């Protein structure tokens, strides 16, 4: 009886030991353990020599009969999973995120985000396909392809170095610049249905984004300090509107590129309190001629509180961004500013509440925004229900006030399938 049970567990033990021996070729475990799962690596397993050929055949016949009686998978040892199984294959992580919304506006909708609902009715905010994997030990590739009603857009596609010396990291390709906090994130990670007005006004509907390269450095300090610098194309109405924008004037010198610099700091104040503070700036040419240039400066603050030991994973976060922009134009200089502050309370894994206040200054006869002469304020409240980690239903109401006042109501649904990468803090 004892011999029989030994035989029966042999395949299991063998499979369990295989990865161990693959990862650790040198040494078997210190001692042959008593429990089956802790059997020594396969190579060292003593063959069950006491069994005769007849016994083995009888056993095999019995096992085969059992296998025929049951679904064959039941007898499969975890060998196919030895290298991670279905999760360990070499396919990249692929996920698909659907954002769709129903919106009602009682006045002219003056949204600035390309993924925002823009009119009363249903909206396909985006269908985002995220694909990511390490290319080799040196590079990681990430791509965000966005399918809209009228086509496909390569929103982001960039490589990131994994093992550059001196704590440096390089990103190259098409990417969202790391100006501020919200710019580099996707609608999936936002706390509101729409993008802050100031981001749309200063950067464009898609945020600050472009083809280029970025170098960042992690400082060897007791707290987190990261310096980021990137050079990207200064053109695109969607994503560099304060610079060349819709008029691509080409690149004749390094001064025709858009430069972004950022300093990111993080302070773990305690196990429960976190504080992130960033400073950002952008410099590049604008399309008003005479070598005129634009600059944007911003600061961002993020305070996060997560009480330890709260089983509901409750947390509260405050996020504030303020931006200042100056543009050289024929005959002078245009200056304006804007910002937002938002407070989000995650009550439990299913419920979240949020409030946001925004202020964006206007300029009379702004060549870029001729209709934006007024100072606009917008106040937004949202309540979100997460049936699971992979779906959410968000109800949002807002009041935008300037020369005209517009009330807006939105109900947005988001669904996520596939293997989606984690988000940064």
């Amino acid at each position, binding site marked *: 009886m004892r011999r029989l049970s030994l035989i029966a567990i042999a395949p299991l033990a063998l499979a369990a030991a295989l990865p161990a021996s693959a990862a650790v070729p040198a040494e078997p*475990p210190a001692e042959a353990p008593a429990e089956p799962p802790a059997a020594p690596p396969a190579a060292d397993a003593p063959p069950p020599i006491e069994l005769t050929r007849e016994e083995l055949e009888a056993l095999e016949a019995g096992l085969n009969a059992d296998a025929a009686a049951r679904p064959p998978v039941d007898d499969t040892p*975890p060998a196919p*999973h030895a290298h*991670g199984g279905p999760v360990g294959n070499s396919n990249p992580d692929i996920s698909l995120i659907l954002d769709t919304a129903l919106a009602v506006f009682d006045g002219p909708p003056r949204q600035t985000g390309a993924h925002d609902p823009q009119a009363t009715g249903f909206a396909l905010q985006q269908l985002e396909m995220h694909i990511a994997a390490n290319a080799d030990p040196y590079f990681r590739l990430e791509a965000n392809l966005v399918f809209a009603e009228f086509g496909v857009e390569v929103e982001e596609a960039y490589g990131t170095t994994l093992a550059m010396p001196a704590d440096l990291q390089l990103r190259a390709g098409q990417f969202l610049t790391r100006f501020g906090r919200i710019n580099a994130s996707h609608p999936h990670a936002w706390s509101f249905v729409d993008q802050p007005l100031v981001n749309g006004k200063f950067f464009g509907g898609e945020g600050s984004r472009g083809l280029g390269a970025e170098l960042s450095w992690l400082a060897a300090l007791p707290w987190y300090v990261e310096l980021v*610098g990137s050079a990207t194309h200064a053109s695109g109405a969607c994503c560099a509107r304060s610079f060349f924008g819709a008029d691509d004037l080409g690149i004749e010198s390094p001064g025709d590129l858009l430069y972004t610099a950022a300093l990111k*700091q993080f302070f773990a104040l305690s196990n429960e309190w976190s504080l992130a503070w960033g400073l950002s700036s952008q410099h590049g040419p604008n399309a008003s001629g005479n070598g005129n240039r634009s600059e944007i400066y911003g600061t961002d603050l993020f305070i996060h509180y997560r009480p330890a*030991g709260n089983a509901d994973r409750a947390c509260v976060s405050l996020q504030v961004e303020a931006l200042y922009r100056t543009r050289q134009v024929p005959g002078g200089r245009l200056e304006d500013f804007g910002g937002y502050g938002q407070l989000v309370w995650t009550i439990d894994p299913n419920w979240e509440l949020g409030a946001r206040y925004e202020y964006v200054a206007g300029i009379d006869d702004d060549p870029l925004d001729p209709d934006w002469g007024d100072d606009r304020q917008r106040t937004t409240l949202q309540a979100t229900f997460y049936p699971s980690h992979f779906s959410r239903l968000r109800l949002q109401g807002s009041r935008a006030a300037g020369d005209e006042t517009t009330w807006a109501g939105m109900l947005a649904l988001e669904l996520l399938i596939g293997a989606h990468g*984690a988000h940064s*803090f």
Partner: protein
Amino acid sequence: METALRPLVPAPSALLTALPALLAATLALLATPNIARADLQVVATLPDLAAIAREIGGEHVTVTALAPPSQDPHYVDPRPNLILPLNRADLLVVNGLELEVGWLPPLQVAARNGRIQTGGEGYFDASAVVRRLGVPQSKVDRAMGDIHPGGNPHFLLDPRAARQIAAALANRMVKLDPSNSAAYRANASAFDEALATFARAQQARFAALSAEQRRVVAYHASLVYLFDWLGLIEAETVEPRPGIAPTPAHVARVLSLMKQQGIRVVVQEAYYPQKTSQTLTRLVGGRVVVLPGGTPDGKRYLQHLQGIADALHAALTQ
């Protein structure tokens, strides 16, 4: 400082942005004392893995755990300060089986440390060396709840799994730091013996209980390895499906099952909500056994498991 800065000036605005950092750097360099460097810098994702690594590495390693015991290992806040130990690490010990998939990968990339990238010599995946339970036998669909396609990842509550991890981890440490190989091997063999003795003793202790007494309800499907080790029978879980919050209909079903089978004990980790479990045990006159979410600071792995075994035994024999 001034002379050093002058040739660096790229653009006045960029300097403006960089200035606080440079100031901070100078201050910090002056303020930080020279920290004595251990031979091997180890970062473990979970407190239990850190505790195991400490047993093997002893005085030759510095071990940092990324997740505190109070946080559900599925949902750890990826705070950027966690990037700092990862940046300096020689060895990253992860649980694997996608347990950390929701928070670890961006930290790993941002660490700018080639040694600890997936597949690197300094990347140790504990799930690759343990016997796995709960490996799905059919296609996994998210409608089933939070199923890990590679198998149930919660093996750190089983000292037999810890033995397998410790043996493989010792070999990895020997490979990365051959100068201390004798110490690593000696520590690993002592730890293995202690684990084996402990595992057998507890098995015998729980085997003395009747089959009736050994029936329990778990909150989340995270205790299958613990139950497998101690011979406990999981009659139901409070969650209808892994990661899906309990529904009234399901909880009612669990209650009637508990009454029917005379089950008095609900077992769960501290980081899951406890109200439903408390209600259930109150209605059957039983008890909730709340397990710490990992080896608490200052405790050793075996002390942690001993505490769990004692609490379970006390509840089952009340």
